[in-house]
């Protein structure tokens, strides 16, 4: 997508173009690059409007939609873009949009945070990404993660994995004896709903919107790209 923004404007090879102007049925769309510096963008906008694209600026009123890509701007910056365009009598800014920034994908093993300690009753740990806790999570304590939760110890409290909606999150523990488990929006209450007798490493996952428990050795079946090791 980003690449296509730059195409078509390539009048000069030496100077990178950051602004693409497209004509559509009901006006113009300004596609602004989202990787360059904001001041560069503003200078170029001014230059384009005043110097190189004079032909746009004559004639009836034209509606302009500004698309910022994934760049996030504040009100003041928005106003400066608007002002630059509005200065040319016949252009009317209709909207300034930016796409939501894509969350950096939390892949397995990537951005895994390792913590040592005990989460006791009344204590809460929140983490963005995957978390490995070396220690126990006690009853009354809670652990919230946007990604996976691994507990190298006893999980006796409340664990919530994928708390921002990552449905393939899992919760694994050396000893899985939680008061409550949550993955995304699904809540499960052992031992009312499930209970395992043997003290094996287990993990909880979502399968078609239902929480399931399995032995940790089965995890590779769930993950799309399990590692294969050479003999």
């Amino acid at each position, binding site marked *: 997508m980003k690449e296509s923004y730059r195409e078509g404007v390539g009048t000069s090879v030496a100077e990178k173009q950051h602004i693409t102007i497209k004509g559509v049925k009901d006006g113009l769309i300004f596609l602004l690059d989202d990787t360059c510096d904001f001041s560069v963008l503003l200078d170029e906008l001014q230059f384009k409007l005043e110097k190189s694209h004079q032909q746009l600026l004559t004639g009836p009123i034209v509606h302009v939609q500004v698309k910022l890509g994934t760049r996030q701007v504040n009100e003041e910056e928005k106003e400066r873009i608007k002002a630059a365009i509005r200065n040319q009598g016949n252009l009317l800014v209709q909207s300034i949009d930016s796409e939501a920034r894509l969350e950096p994908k939390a892949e397995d093993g990537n951005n895994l945070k390792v913590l040592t300690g005990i989460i*006791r*009753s009344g204590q809460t740990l929140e983490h963005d990404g995957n978390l490995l806790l070396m220690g126990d999570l006690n009853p009354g304590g809670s652990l919230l993660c946007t990604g996976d939760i691994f507990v190298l110890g006893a999980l006796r409290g409340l664990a919530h994995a994928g708390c921002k909606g990552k449905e393939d999150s899992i919760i694994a523990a050396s000893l899985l004896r939680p008061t409550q488990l949550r993955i995304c929006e699904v809540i499960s209450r052992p031992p009312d709903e499930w209970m395992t007798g043997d003290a094996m490493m287990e993990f909880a996952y979502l399968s078609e919107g239902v929480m399931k428990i399995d032995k940790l050795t089965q995890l590779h079946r769930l993950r799309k790209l399990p590692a294969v090791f050479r003999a």
Partner: protein
Amino acid sequence: MGEAIVITSGKGGVGKTTTSANIGTALALLGKKVCMVDTDIGLRNLDVVMGLENRIIYDLIDVAEGRCRLNQALVKDKRFEELYMLPAAQTKDKTDISPEQVRDMVLELKKEFDYVIIDCPAGIEQGFRNAVAGADRAIVVTTPENAAVRDADRVIGLLEQTQIPARLVINRIRANMVRNGEMLDIDEICQVLAIDLLGIVPDDEKVIRSANAGEPTVMDPSSRAAIAYRNIARRMLGDMVPLMPLEEKAGVMKRFRKFLGIG
């Protein structure tokens, strides 16, 4: 310079005051100079358990508000020369004193005594913060009940935040219930709370009887709870004392009757 030890639990009714009174008395029994401080303002009990209620003239709040000097408020024990108690006020509230004031008092007491035992009120609010303010170490009391263990865990978390090292006393253990799996056992509790175990105290009717009589249980060596408290005090002084067995050794007659099936 002595050491200040706060006795706390989170939950009420697990035996903080009883433990304070008994540990304080046991340390005095071992020849230490001890002062017990009751910080449960508004619900003072330590004086009743110690049987010193009628000797109180001034209290903690009187000291804080400058109505008397600290050593004027100290109540000397009737059994030991070097055992004192600083009673709490019964008419005031926990918010009538600040953690800083308690800390200053404890600091002052530490100069004079080997051990300052601080009896903490139940809960984790102002009263708890007051009690913990001057403490160097903590003894967390719990009973083998889920609710008590949960609250003990919460309190240990709070103590860790203030970097006060804590040790555990498990109170009111009933051997027969543990044996039948009806009560949490010691290992389970220690696994969850993950702090050093200072001692275990068996449930004993004599504790209630002696508390009502205003006589700390430790004074009666025929009581198993008394031995447990004495062991705790010795461990606090650094002695290696093994945990007492939960089951009482059955006497010859008892074993014989059991053998016949009528015990």
